[in-house]
């Protein structure tokens, strides 16, 4: 056995981490080689110093509430494994539901902003017959009624050959209004709507 191989094996030899055949071979070499023997003693002394230094490091005992805290952590982990629908906090901790919640909030907020305007124009755009009823009761004039319902455009289109076809989609509005407006003035009912 050579000195270089022996020196490589010395830490493991000192740690008792070497197989018996190799141990015997190294020990034979050490008996015959003074320099390797000195090196072995040096490493052993170094290990002992190191070990005694490290052994100065305090050994500590777990605190009395250690087990209780372990069980708390176990319970917390188990709570994490509950179905998602049972955990509102977890739902909102995820990015996608956060995004969905933000989007829903934005839509609701936007609706609240726009709702007054929609309600203000409701009479002008709805085809629920409210405008017709108002017309029948004489609360609004036929001009106002047809202005609101775009019906005058369709009447113009129906009665005047050169009039442009209306681009609005309120044809049905006008038609429904007409069909339900029994009290409409005959002059306005003389033409037919397309």
């Amino acid at each position: 056995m050579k000195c270089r191989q022996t020196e490589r094996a010395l830490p493991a030899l000192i740690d008792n981490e070497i197989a018996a055949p190799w141990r015997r071979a190294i020990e034979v070499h050490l008996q015959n080689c003074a320099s390797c023997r000195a090196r072995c003693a040096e490493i052993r002394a170094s290990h002992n110093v190191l070990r005694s230094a490290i052994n100065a490091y305090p050994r500590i005992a777990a605190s009395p509430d250690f087990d209780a805290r372990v069980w708390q952590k176990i319970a917390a982990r188990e709570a994490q494994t509950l179905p998602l629908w049972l955990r509102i906090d977890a739902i909102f901790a995820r990015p996608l539901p956060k995004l969905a919640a933000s989007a829903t909030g934005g839509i609701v907020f936007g609706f609240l902003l726009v709702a007054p305007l929609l309600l203000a124009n409701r009479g002008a755009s709805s085809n629920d017959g409210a405008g017709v009823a108002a017309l029948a009761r004489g609360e609004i004039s036929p001009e106002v009624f047809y202005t609101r319902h775009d019906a005058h455009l369709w009447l113009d289109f129906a009665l005047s050959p050169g009039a442009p076809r209306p681009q609005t989609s309120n044809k049905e509005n006008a038609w429904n209004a007409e069909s339900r407006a029994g009290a409409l003035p005959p002059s306005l009912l003389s033409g037919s709507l397309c």
Partner: protein
Amino acid sequence: MSFHFVAPRLRCTNQTEQSSDADAQLVARCQAGERAAFEILLARYRNRVVNLAHGFLGSRDDAEDAAQDVFAAAFASIHTFRGDAQLWTWLYRITVNQCLHRKRRAKPCENRDDAGGDENPGTTRDESAVVVARLGVESALDELSPPLRAVLVLREMHDLTYEEIAAALQIPIGTVRSRLNQARREFKIAWTRSEES
């Protein structure tokens, strides 16, 4: 010619074999959902795990917190333990991973106990010397990289064999041997420097 060291199980006495058998039974009971069995394992290994974490992290509070996380993780994944390794090797592996994870997250020099540690102001000269020695060891350990510190702590503080360290860190035995040599060299240099200063 090259060496192939076979790590002998020098400390694999009858007592440890019986302990392993008992561990295997406890693990089986834990896997069957018996919490009382886990309480026994907890009582058996809590101090070892806390001390191992303390060797890594240097702070008692951090060590306890990490050890609690280790047992919580062990409880959650005990069904995956198939008995290929010793139970405590498995626990050591979880502990090492947990500590390395915490070391990566922690800022440098953040996780150290105070100079006084657990000692009170009225310590004697001998106790002060112990504290100084401990601080020297701590600062020397802090200078090691986490992989080197891991092998040194497992070997010198916890008397694990090369094979057990290899199993705990999931590295080859040859790597354990080379890292241990390097760790000892670096620790000695750092410790000597701290002693001189």
